């Protein structure tokens, strides 16, 4: 029987060896795509993240492609939400991700919309100041504003006389809302609508964020959790409700800005650090509402890959050379 056991051991050893070889082979070739170390980036490795929806993925890829062109090595990972991204960047799991000033203000910092200073710049400065002691650096934002909105079908708007969010508060018991799971319990999401405007929908259809217009299209919902930059706001028969109390997105602007882990930024050699901030500023300056809408439409309608969309855009804008 010792022979049998010896064979068992031999068999297991062979299996482990085979597995180990596979692992080694697989691990070896996963280098970052694109540029080598030529450029001010000097091959510094950066881990970027997006928050799991199309626009976020596009911006993250825009950053990644532009930075690679400057000689950085980048990796983009997809995280599930703002909370997760914030936690990850604070403990250094990721180095950089795109956030919104409004989200940072209301959700991450937990501040009251009513207490927001007037003007997008002032809000950004407040966010920047509050982020510094958290170990995070907020870099200048893009021009486009992507507020959280509620949009309803024009039919529903006519039937219930919906023009503002307060109007919705009264009529919401008859209406069905389409949103994603995160929105349901996020402080600046449905809880805020309920609290400030008395909005209490008859039913909420919870779908993945990329599918939130489907219930509208299928006729199963009349209202939807919309972003200011959604291409479908233009193509579907929807009306955006006005934030009359200023507690939702009217009170606070939602500009896209890069968040960087301060320790990582300061740990870079001076040339690389400057290249990082300059490149991000260059990319962000290009993002107007019209441009970002076009990019989102490519991903959401044509199901193009965010990376391809980012590359095409940056090449067309002559930020990076075509490869």
């Amino acid at each position, binding site marked *: *029987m*010792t022979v*049998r*056991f010896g*064979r*068992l051991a031999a*068999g297991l050893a062979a*299996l482990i060896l085979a*597995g180990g070889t*596979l*692992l080694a082979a*697989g*691990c070896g070739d*996963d280098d970052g795509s694109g540029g080598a170390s030529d450029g001010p980036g000097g091959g510094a490795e950066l881990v970027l993240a997006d928050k*799991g*929806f*199309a626009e976020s993925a596009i911006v993250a890829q825009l950053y990644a492609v532009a930075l690679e062109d400057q000689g950085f090595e980048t990796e983009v990972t*997809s*995280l*599930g939400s703002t909370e*997760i991204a914030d936690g990850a960047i604070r403990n250094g799991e990721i180095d950089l991700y795109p956030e919104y000033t409004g989200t940072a203000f209301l959700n991450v910092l937990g501040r009251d919309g009513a207490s927001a200073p007037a003007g997008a710049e002032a809000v950004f400065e407040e966010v920047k100041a509050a982020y510094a002691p958290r170990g995070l650096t907020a870099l200048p934002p893009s021009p486009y504003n992507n507020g959280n909105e509620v949009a309803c079908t024009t039919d529903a708007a006519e039937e219930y006389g919906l023009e503002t969010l307060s109007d919705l508060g009264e009529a919401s018991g008859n209406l069905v809302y389409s949103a994603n799971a995160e929105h349901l319990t996020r402080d600046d999401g449905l809880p805020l609508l309920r609290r400030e405007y008395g909005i209490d929908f008859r039913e909420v259809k919870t779908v*993945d*964020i*990329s*599918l939130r217009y*489907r219930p509208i299209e299928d006729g199963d919902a009349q209202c939807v959790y919309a972003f200011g930059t959604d291409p479908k706001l233009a193509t579907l028969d929807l009306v955006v409700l006005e934030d009359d109390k200023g507690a939702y997105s009217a009170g606070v602007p939602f500009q896209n800005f890069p968040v960087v882990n301060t320790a990582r930024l300061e740990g870079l050699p001076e040339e690389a650090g400057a290249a990082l901030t300059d490149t991000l500023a260059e990319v962000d300056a290009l993002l107007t509402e019209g441009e970002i809408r076009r990019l989102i439409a490519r*991903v*959401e309608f044509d*199901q193009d*890959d965010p990376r391809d969309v980012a590359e095409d855009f940056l090449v067309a804008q002559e930020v990076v050379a075509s490869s």
Partner: protein
Amino acid sequence: MPEVRWEWIADHAEEIQTRSLEHLILVSASTAIGVAIAIPIGIAVRGRRIPFAAATGITGLLYTIPSLAMFAFLLPIFGIGVTPAVVGLVLYSLLLLVRNTAVGLESVPEAVREASRGMGLTPRQVLLRVDLPLALPAIMAGIRLATVSAVGIATVAVLIGGGGLGVLIYSDGIQRALFFTPIVTGAVCATVMAIVLDLLLVGVERLLTPWARARAAVR
């Protein structure tokens, strides 16, 4: 039937490879750890009614808990990432492995064990040289079941940051408005992986138990 965009697959070949490898690591690591935990437990509870019932009861309960819930329970303890994914997969593998180990050991004919004791083997030697090798078919059956089951459950690991083929299905597919190509790619890769691993393990079992084949032939 939505069409498959082959260019997508070609463009993402590297990602598909990476995710497959991640998936394989999740499955093999958890099965290996499961085996390391389950075999001693199986040895300890064999032939003893109440310990056996307790062991299979607890591991059975774990097996019944749906994977999303299980991963949710592990999240506050382990955070997101590979760790809770592996822990969850290990817990799922235990029922099949413990049960099959114990039952396999129990089915060793008493006559054989007595004979080997008669030849002067210590209880430990009996275990290592008689019981375990003879229980090998049952143990391997458990490993096969646990492995195939792990391939399936590991697809959910993406939701807690565990990576694997679920990334193709969820992040690249579902989160891009149910983009069909990566979903089908992930599904096919996972299914193929399950089948290939199952066959591999059958081969390993045949290698390790040539006497079973001989017995089958005689029958």
